[in-house]
């Protein structure tokens, strides 16, 4: 009986296999900068990839490679993927920008999608990004309201426009919520090094910073904040990081809200277009209205009125009524960047290389 069941299921599997093969599934491949288990950036891209598979079932095949270093190594991985029959390749970190374009030149029939970059040197290269600064605006508001010491922190990775945009948006809205707030920025010079991220969080906590947001990929800063035992707070970054909502003893955890990158809608849309022949080269920059930037559940550590204000901001951004960078905003040196009511254009944001007024310190080169 058992053997028969086994044979039957083997036959079924074989026929399913051939059926799928006959339809020639579209193969979507993903290159990740960290391990899927980082609980943050890469985890969230992988969730998007799994949602893609879920959506199209046998019509789509997915493959991925984790922990691919940025730079020359990634070029080798990309070439390998292109040779192994991928129809569309998503490269999910800024540092893959040049390798993506270089490999795309050699494989004109394969579509390449590069996350957070700006170079589209070949017709088969598209870029996609999410308006994370919308999420930073909301957590900035919460940070400004929640800080007791009036010092809030930002663990920055590399001085690229993406990160600087996040710092500015975070500070701008913290300052609107609390004019006395002071921002402390530490540059970790890594996307993923849990020990260093934890040390950076520790250094800020020791100096009286009590609300920290991270622009790095691991959960280590939250684990470090948890050691303060409820006198400091942080946010989930890229992923919900819900494991830090409550501590093991049931007390409120360090994560009071989170900025979630929801890549699934984009992946499903693009692969769908590839399959039905409407695929075109694009430069996508979607945010809360499209559901690509989501604020995770706010915990009760945030006072009810602040939760309501944050929700109002989310609603306004989602409805397209509010742009986080709306003037008047001055540059750090005091010169006018945006006049009253003026809204920042995407070009300036994507090339942002200056702090806004009120932030101390300099952007490293």
């Amino acid at each position, binding site marked *: 009986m058992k053997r028969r069941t086994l044979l039957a299921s083997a036959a079924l599997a074989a026929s399913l296999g051939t059926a799928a093969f006959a339809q020639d599934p579209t193969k979507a491949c993903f290159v990740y900068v960290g*391990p*899927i*288990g*980082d*609980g943050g950036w890469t*985890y969230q891209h992988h969730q998007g990839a799994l949602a893609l598979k879920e959506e199209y079932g046998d019509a789509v095949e997915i493959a991925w490679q984790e*922990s691919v270093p940025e730079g020359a190594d990634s070029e080798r991985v990309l070439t390998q993927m292109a040779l192994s029959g991928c129809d569309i390749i998503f490269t999910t970190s800024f540092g893959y920008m040049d390798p993506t374009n270089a490999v795309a030149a050699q494989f004109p029939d394969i579509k390449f999608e590069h996350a957070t970059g700006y170079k589209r040197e070949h017709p088969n290269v598209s870029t996609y990004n999410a308006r994370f600064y919308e999420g930073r605006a909301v957590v900035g508001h919460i940070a400004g309201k929640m800080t007791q010491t009036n010092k809030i*922190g930002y663990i920055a990775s590399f001085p690229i426009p993406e990160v600087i945009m996040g710092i500015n948006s975070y500070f701008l809205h913290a300052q609107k919520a609390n004019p006395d707030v002071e921002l*402390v*920025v*530490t*540059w970790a*010079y890594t996307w*993923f*090094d*849990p*020990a*260093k991220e*934890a*040390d*950076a969080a*520790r*250094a*800020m906590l*020791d*100096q*009286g*910073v009590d609300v920290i947001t991270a622009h790095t990929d*691991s*959960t*280590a800063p939250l*684990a470090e904040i948890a050691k303060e035992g409820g006198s400091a707070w942080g946010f989930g970054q890229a992923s919900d990081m819900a*494991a830090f909502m409550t501590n093991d003893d049931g007390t409120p955890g360090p994560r009071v809200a989170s900025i979630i990158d929801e890549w699934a809608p984009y992946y499903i849309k693009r692969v769908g277009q590839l399959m039905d022949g409407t695929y075109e080269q694009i430069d996508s920059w979607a945010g809360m209205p499209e559901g690509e930037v989501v604020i995770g559940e706010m915990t009760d550590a945030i006072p009810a009125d602040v939760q309501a204000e944050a929700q109002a901001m989310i609603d306004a951004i989602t409805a397209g009524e509010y742009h986080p960078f709306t003037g008047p905003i001055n540059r750090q040196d005091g010169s006018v960047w945006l006049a009253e009511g003026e809204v920042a254009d995407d070009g300036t944001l994507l090339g942002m290389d200056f702090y806004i007024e009120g932030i*101390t*310190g*300099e952007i*490293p*080169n």
Partner: protein
Amino acid sequence: MDLTSINPVLLIASLMVSATPILLAAMGEMVVEKSGVLNLGVEGMMITGAITGFAIAVNTGSPALGFIAAAAGAAMLALAFGILTQFLLSNQVATGLGLTLVGLGLSSLIGKPYEGIKSPTLPRLDLGPLSDIPVLGRMLFSHDIMVYFSLALVAAVWAVLKFTRAGLVLRAVGESHDAAHALGYKVVRVRLLAILFGGACAGLGGAYLSLVRVPQWTEGMTAGAGWIALAIVVFASWRAGRVLVGAYLFGGITVLQLNLQAAGAQVPVALLSASPYLITILVLVIISVRGVHGAPASLGRPFHASH
């Protein structure tokens, strides 16, 4: 720049935590080198300890068992090194480098299912009235047990090497294995024990990273700490007390550079990030120029009774 926002008490407290992994690993490596063996596989043994300790702590819920398993796991890896170099007389440098590669690969293989999991961690030790002393309490007496264990280890290694017969034998083997052999000491056995001790210490250092300092498992999380431990042994000219100074100096610079950044110091960040490594190189150069090494005379030389 507002340097007053840096609290020296908290700085020293976090320095002690930050330096503990490299202190443990460097202490073990110093004993190994004192016996005349150069094991360059510290990084590999550390990361093996990090994942073994993490896996056992997660599965049993006990960080203490995790640390024991980490010491045992890394010592097993060190045993492989010992057999290769002591019995099969393989080249110590090449075997040590190989050990690092094996450790990194093995740990990421074992670690796959453990990514993104929270582990039980060590509580701060309750030292009663000592923890309540105003400044010193927060600075010195509010840590977990491994910090004190590492300090006790330094004292123990120093005392054993200086005052005991066992320490004298170990040093004799390291200085001149032929003379030690002629006196009837079991050179290979002594070295093997030293190698196992070194492995266990490196494993504890790795587990401290994955169970206390971060606490989570990530591929490649030691990020070069093993190499720093090796450099610290040379920096310390093979003396236990100086290993402690070296490890705390290095841990201190790492923590200080992040604190300086947070305080808004107008120093190039890239330079600050590189400063621990630059200072290590600088110290090594100074030691070389002085010409007084203090290295065990038989360091790295293979021994066979027939030679």
